[in-house]
């Protein structure tokens, strides 16, 4: 296999995301490990969005909905488990769970279902209407969570102890990082296979020319809805991990700021670039850490950077470094 500049860059990034926390671990700097974990999780959310946005051309401003559903899946299951409070008693007694694999499964299933419903309704529109409808669905869930007093309403839900993963001590930062990192890598492998698959070819063609796709007998709506569901499920999984990282979930995870942030990771790194969200999320965390120490208004700098990238480097960071995307053959 020939290594292009972009794939070299990708390898370098994914290696750096592993080496930095390992170095921090050996130097006993748990805070840096937590930052790297956050970057990996946010990158995962971006990988999810990038399937809809980059591959499918679906500008969703509602991905916070899936991120938040994942977060609440964790919060609700874990809250019931820690309080020994049955979530439901029929058809069997279920007192929630503090097991990550089950929480992830619930997060993925529910965010996929939400994406199916939201997608089925909003994909009947396109362009700016699609953006507004996804935004509206996201905000609907946000206000629902605020008023849902059973699960903390505006204050959110706190979990005392991080959930468990068989055979690992998830309270150890480096072990929890490993979980997030492995999931991110798996998602990247999946996204890369997807982009080259028959489905990916048809989906990206529908973004480029809808008439062409219809004329060869494929239905853009079905392709896009499938992409939206996959995209929502991955972002939902990231939401569950993010809530577990913070041991806290609140309506903020569902707010449109969150949707905007996930989109910023994708745009910073490069829309449609496989590793774009990794670059974007890492840069975002880095800026937040470095500039946040200087000023509370660090996002002004982020805004300027975003502006520069949109104006001068449409391919994002990866595009600026690795050049124009090669049509993969």
């Amino acid at each position, binding site marked *: 296999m020939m290594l292009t500049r972009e794939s070299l860059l990708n390898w370098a990034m994914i290696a750096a995301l592993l080496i930095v926390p390992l170095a921090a671990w050996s130097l006993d700097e748990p805070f840096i490990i937590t930052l790297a974990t956050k970057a990996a999780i946010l990158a995962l959310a971006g990988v999810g969005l990038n399937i809809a946005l980059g591959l499918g051309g679906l500008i969703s401003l509602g991905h916070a909905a899936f991120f938040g559903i994942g977060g609440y899946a964790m919060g609700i299951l874990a809250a019931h488990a820690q309080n020994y409070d049955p979530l439901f008693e029929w058809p069997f007694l279920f007192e929630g769970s503090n097991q990550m694999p089950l929480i992830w499964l619930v997060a993925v299933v529910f965010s996929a279902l939400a994406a199916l419903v939201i997608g089925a309704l909003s994909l009947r529109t396109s362009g700016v209407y699609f953006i507004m409808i996804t935004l509206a669905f996201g905000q609907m869930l946000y206000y629902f969570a605020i008023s849902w007093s059973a699960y903390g309403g505006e204050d959110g839900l706190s979990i005392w102890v991080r959930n468990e993963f068989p055979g690992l001590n998830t309270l150890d930062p480096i072990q929890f990082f490993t979980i997030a990192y492995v999931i991110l890598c798996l998602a990247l492998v999946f996204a890369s*296979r*997807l982009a*080259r*698959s*028959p*489905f*990916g*070819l*048809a989906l*990206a*063609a529908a973004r*480029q*020319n809808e*008439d*062409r*796709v*219809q*004329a*060869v*007998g*494929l*239905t853009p709506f079905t*392709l896009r809805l*499938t992409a939206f569901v996959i995209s929502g499920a991955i972002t939902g999984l990231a939401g569950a991990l993010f809530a577990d990282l913070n041991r806290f979930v609140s309506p903020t995870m569902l707010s449109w700021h969150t949707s905007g942030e996930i989109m910023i990771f994708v745009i910073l790194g490069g829309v449609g670039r496989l590793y774009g969200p990794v670059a974007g999320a890492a840069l975002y965390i880095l800026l937040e850490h470095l500039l946040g120490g200087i000023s509370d208004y660090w996002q002004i700098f982020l805004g300027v950077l975003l502006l520069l990238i949109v104006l001068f480097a449409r391919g994002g960071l990866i595009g600026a470094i690795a050049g124009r995307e090669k*049509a*993969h*053959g």
Partner: protein
Amino acid sequence: MADVVLKTKGLSKSFGALQASRDVSLDLRPGEIHALIGPNGAGKSTLIKQIAGNLTPDSGTVELLGRDVTALDTVARARMGLGRTFQISALAMEYTVLQNAVLGALGGRGRPFHFFRNVMKDAELLERAWDALERVGLTEDANRRTADLSHGQRRQLEVAVALTLKPRLFLMDEPMAGLGTAGSKALTGFLDGLRQEAPILLVEHDMDAVFALADRISVLVYGQIIATGTADDIRANAEVRRAYLGEEDAA
């Protein structure tokens, strides 16, 4: 097996006060090239869209392979075997030439919901795609980005993508548009042989090509078919000369 591949019966379509199609009835038989000609604004594109499924007629029906498809959309008609080329090239411009052809082959085969296999290593799809590219003479350009192709090459690729579908009939909207004399001639020769594979409903402005190729010609003026017949019939038809060819001579 239906003896008529495509049949429209009494198609009418209006946009406000403008009647773009008036009671249009035409058919396409196996093995023929049926050319549809008419001056600009005669309603050719509107008619094509109703046949392909982009527009629903106000009244009348479209039959494909003996089945009424008036209520079916473009995707369903494409799956039934309608291979279409567009007046303005509709291709995935970021893709390579080969990827566009593979997309067509994928559509022709169906079942696009595979998420793990590498589509560009699918032997069945590649064979179909290369075969189509070879037939239109684009193999040398297979790995070029479609956006970098010349206008004429894009026209060729349009035809190649339609070929990958292995359609039962072709609906070609001005395939010669913008081709040079040589390109036009080459495509004329190609279409000449293609009619044996599947009949072609050909909308075309290039009169040399039309008169050289068409088994039958229908003339559309103000949304209405004023004559249908062989090239000689059409040349001799006084109404056609007045409405169409005369206008062309004057221009």
